[in-house]
């Protein structure tokens, strides 16, 4: 399918797809009346603080809690030994590994949870947490996966039976022999070795929980920062052995997620256990330092990519070897079958017959997590690698990087495209997106300016990334998390007055679901979006779903919403036929009205139909206008785009500044263009952050260096570039209304564009790689090395 134009079908009063409807949720946020977890106060609520390990790897010899227990206001001190009495010292991770809730045997990363204090006041809890004394016997800390896999490396997971090495997983995809053969016959092999550094999503709201367990009824109400409340309820039921119907997870307003709020963290479990034992609500809110050192890191992939090419500039095959640093517990949030997530999408936007992707992961003494930070299960690392590699291949062949891409793109008539690692791309027009971006940036002219600047001793670089994503998991046959199939759901009720309520299994964290999902119903049922209320984030009141991450909401829950709306429309048709005393086959649907074909005067509105559904249903038809749909997508969706960045690099200091950032995205049919643009802005800023400054690093003892916002740098408005957006629209052929999902495209696509631009400015000096973050000192060092070599 090729790029099309898309215009709204509904008038603004209805506000269906394609309208830049202003956000409904803003009303509470602009008055400071959001309801985030930390805003929740319950009568008698206690506060929890966690005592964490100061060292990265050590055996616990003893824990002395007596001083902490004696502090006035302290109600309880919880240790792993105590939890072990309830069989709660360990919990399952989303990857089917186990993770210590509170350490009993060893600590395996700096910042690991060792004990918790419950007190009447947060300040008191924090004081007392510092009065817990732990004796450690220190062990060698392992701070990189290369060391971890050496024969003499100490075993990190000696808690697990039958484990003899620190190898966490090994997984491969594609055709090894075919790929090796393609490489043997290639004119040139282009190699890139690079590290996608450890990063952290760092939403501005940290993670937290208020656990409220009523010991009399054993009803547990758990308010938590959760991107996946239903899945979390199931995990709680499994971990704590509580009956699932007695657990209610409420995920109130979330102050940004970006993957950070997908896993279940020890703090949630400890607070819940404490509430159960004490019989009072317990609140735990992470400090920022706790958030950065212990929860949901992302990336940390060491990647070697090789591209086999012909002298004419055709790609013949791709070979990738990747080693990931998993931290102390394998806690990646990802589909069970794919041990390195969807990293094998690394073949990207290009057409070649063979590829082989070998992946391994190693345990290290670092925080666990492996969340997909604003990313669909590792597509970010994959996209980065192929886009950097393609750029370098163009240089080696003496070709323009845009021309090299255009020569190798998958063509529009090749869709559905079967990729060498087993994906079936739904639709795309990669050339249209790149040509549009080139037009916007004035590609030829800027290339000429670059040459001219070079003659004047200035460094200008142009970087391109033409990325392809894979989002919206499942279908359920191949995609599950802990066995839960990756469907999602929508429950819609149209009330007698024609106003509707839609309940979802997903959970917005700023994406604006209350606005956009109403637009889907408006499009399908003709009910004005303003008349539709959206409910999500409460497991007692919404249908089961896997949650919001990996850009799933629109592709999966959005599809469920469209399908249930259509089902209700079908039922509405029967009611309309009854009201009009006509036969169903003679009725035509037109934006909220049924009328007899050829006679638009004799119409009934969807509101009339809704009223009749409760007051005058046709004989034999079930009353009401309500239903639920569980949508298992037939395939994933494949958003794409082309980004072009122009940078000026200061030859003296290595500082670089973005002169232009042009982003052309294709996310299929848009629900709300304003919200799509906002999401792209945010993603481009985070991509800039990763490429330029944002990373979590460790010293050789395993001390986390990026443990606060003074060291873990997040760009402010001052540094953040200004973006120019463009679009093409290539609908997804299998999604009910052609949408693909967009929340992560820009974080996936943009880092390679920024880095390619800096490399482009320096490549005539012989620089082919600088690992992210491409900080001025690294640029400067690369220039020095090139000049001296």
């Amino acid at each position: 399918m090729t790029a099309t134009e898309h215009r709204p079908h509904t008038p603004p009063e209805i506000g269906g797809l394609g309208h830049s409807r202003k956000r409904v949720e803003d009303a509470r946020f602009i008055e400071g009346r959001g309801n985030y977890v930390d805003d929740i106060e319950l009568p008698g609520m206690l506060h929890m603080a966690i005592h964490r390990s100061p060292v990265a790897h050590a055996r616990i010899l003893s824990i002395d809690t007596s001083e902490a227990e004696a502090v006035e206001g302290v109600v309880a001190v919880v240790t792993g030994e105590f939890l072990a009495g309830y069989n709660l010292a360990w919990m399952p991770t989303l990857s089917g590994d186990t993770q210590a809730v509170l350490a009993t045997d060893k600590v395996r990363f700096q910042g690991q949870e060792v004990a918790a204090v419950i007190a009447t006041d947060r300040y008191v809890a924090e004081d007392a947490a510092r009065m817990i004394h732990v004796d450690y016997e220190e062990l060698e800390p392992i701070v990189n996966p290369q060391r971890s896999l050496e024969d003499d490396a100490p075993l990190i997971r000696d808690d697990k039976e039958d484990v003899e090495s620190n190898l966490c997983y090994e997984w491969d995809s594609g055709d090894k022999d075919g790929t090796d053969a393609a490489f043997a016959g290639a004119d040139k092999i282009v190699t890139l070795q690079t590290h996608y550094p450890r990063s952290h999503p760092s939403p501005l709201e940290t993670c937290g929980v208020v656990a409220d367990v009523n010991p009399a009824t054993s009803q547990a109400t758990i308010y938590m920062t959760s991107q996946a409340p239903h899945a979390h309820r199931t995990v709680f039921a499994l971990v704590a052995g509580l009956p699932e119907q007695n657990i209610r997870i409420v995920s109130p307003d979330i102050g940004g997620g970006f993957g950070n709020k997908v896993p279940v963290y020890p703090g949630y479990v400890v607070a819940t256990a404490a509430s159960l034992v004490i019989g009072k609500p317990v609140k735990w809110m992470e400090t920022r330092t706790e958030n950065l050192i212990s929860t949901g890191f992302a990336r940390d992939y060491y990647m070697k990519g090789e591209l086999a090419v012909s002298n004419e500039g055709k790609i013949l095959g791709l070979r990738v070897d990747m080693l990931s640093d998993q931290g102390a517990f394998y806690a990646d949030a990802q589909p069970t079958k794919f041990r390195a997530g969807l990293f094998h999408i690394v073949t990207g936007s290009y057409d070649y017959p063979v590829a082989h992707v070998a992946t391994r992961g190693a345990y290290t003494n670092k925080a666990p997590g492996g969340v997909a930070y604003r990313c669909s299960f590792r597509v970010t690392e994959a996209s980065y690698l192929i886009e950097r590699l393609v750029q370098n291949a163009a240089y080696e062949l003496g070709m323009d990087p845009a021309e090299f891409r255009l020569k190798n793109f998958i063509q529009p008539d090749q869709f559905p495209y079967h990729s060498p690692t087993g994906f079936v791309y739904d639709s795309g027009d990669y050339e249209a997106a790149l040509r549009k971006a080139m037009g916007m940036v004035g590609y030829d002219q800027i290339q000429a300016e670059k040459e001219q600047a070079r003659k004047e001793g200035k460094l200008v670089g142009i970087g391109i990334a033409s990325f392809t994503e894979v989002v919206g998991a499942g279908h359920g046959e191949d995609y599950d998390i802990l066995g839960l199939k990756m469907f999602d759901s929508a429950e819609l009720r149209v009330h007698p007055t024609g106003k509707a309520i839609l309940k979802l299994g997903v959970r917005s964290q700023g994406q604006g679901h209350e606005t956009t999902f109403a637009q889907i119903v408006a499009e399908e049922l003709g009910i004005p979006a303003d008349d539709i209320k959206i409910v999500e984030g409460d497991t007692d009141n919404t249908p089961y779903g896997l949650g919001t991450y990996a850009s799933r909401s629109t592709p999966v829950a959005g599809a469920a919403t469209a399908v249930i709306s259509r089902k209700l429309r079908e039922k509405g048709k029967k009611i309309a036929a009854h009201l009009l005393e006509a036969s169903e086959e003679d009725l035509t649907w037109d934006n909220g009205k049924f009328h007899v074909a050829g006679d638009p005067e004799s119409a009934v509105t969807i509101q009339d139909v809704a009223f009749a559904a409760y007051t005058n249903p046709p004989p034999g038809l079930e009353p009401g206008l309500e239903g639920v749909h569980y949508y298992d997508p037939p395939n994933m969706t494949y958003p794409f785009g082309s980004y072009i960045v122009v940078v000026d690099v200061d030859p003296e200091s290595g500082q670089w500044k973005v002169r232009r950032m042009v982003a052309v995205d294709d996310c299929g049919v848009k629900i709300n263009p304003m919200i799509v643009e906002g999401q792209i802005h945010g993603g481009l800023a985070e991509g800039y952050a990763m490429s330029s400054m944002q990373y979590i690093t460790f010293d050789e003892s395993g001390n986390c260096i990026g443990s606060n916002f003074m060291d873990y740098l997040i760009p402010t408005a001052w540094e953040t570039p200004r973006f120019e957006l463009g679009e093409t629209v290539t609908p997804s052929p299998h999604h009910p209304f052609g949408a693909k999902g967009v929340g992560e495209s820009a974080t996936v696509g943009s880092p390679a564009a920024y880095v390619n631009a800096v490399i482009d400015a320096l490549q005539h000096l012989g620089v082919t790689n600088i690992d992210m973050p491409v900080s001025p000192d690294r640029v400067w060092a690369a220039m020095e090395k090139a000049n001296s070599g």
Partner: protein
Amino acid sequence: MNITLTVNGGEHTADVEPRRLLVDFLRSTVGLKGTHIGCDTTSCGVCTVLVDGTPVKSCTMFAVQANGRSITTVEGLKQNGDLSAIQKAFKEEHGLQCGFCTPAMMLVGTALIEENPDPSEDQIRWAISGNLCRCTGYINIVKAIMAAAETTREGASS
């Protein structure tokens, strides 16, 4: 220690521990939850309030230091029951997504416009550079402050 301060025009007297941060005082004692907490190193700015009209990170000030001062939080932005120009502009220009940084951003914008009714884009970016946002890439926040400045100027001249 006994302190008295004005919050959004109303007086509050309380006995507070000297070490209690202003942000905790506002959230817990006064019960205004619109002022948020996002870090422990004075870096993120989501706790920003106006102290006698000047933006201050309320996690960096003890409640006792605010004794006798006048504080404005996001809950004090509405004027006579109407949304202020900046509140309207944030909604109109899509200046927020998760909303966590928004109260602080609006307060900083309000103070800026008060001081400089016609700020340039660079002046706005500089003014909010003590406030992080993870969702918006700042573009629409800048636009919203720009738009609010314009309506405020129009309001003043009409």
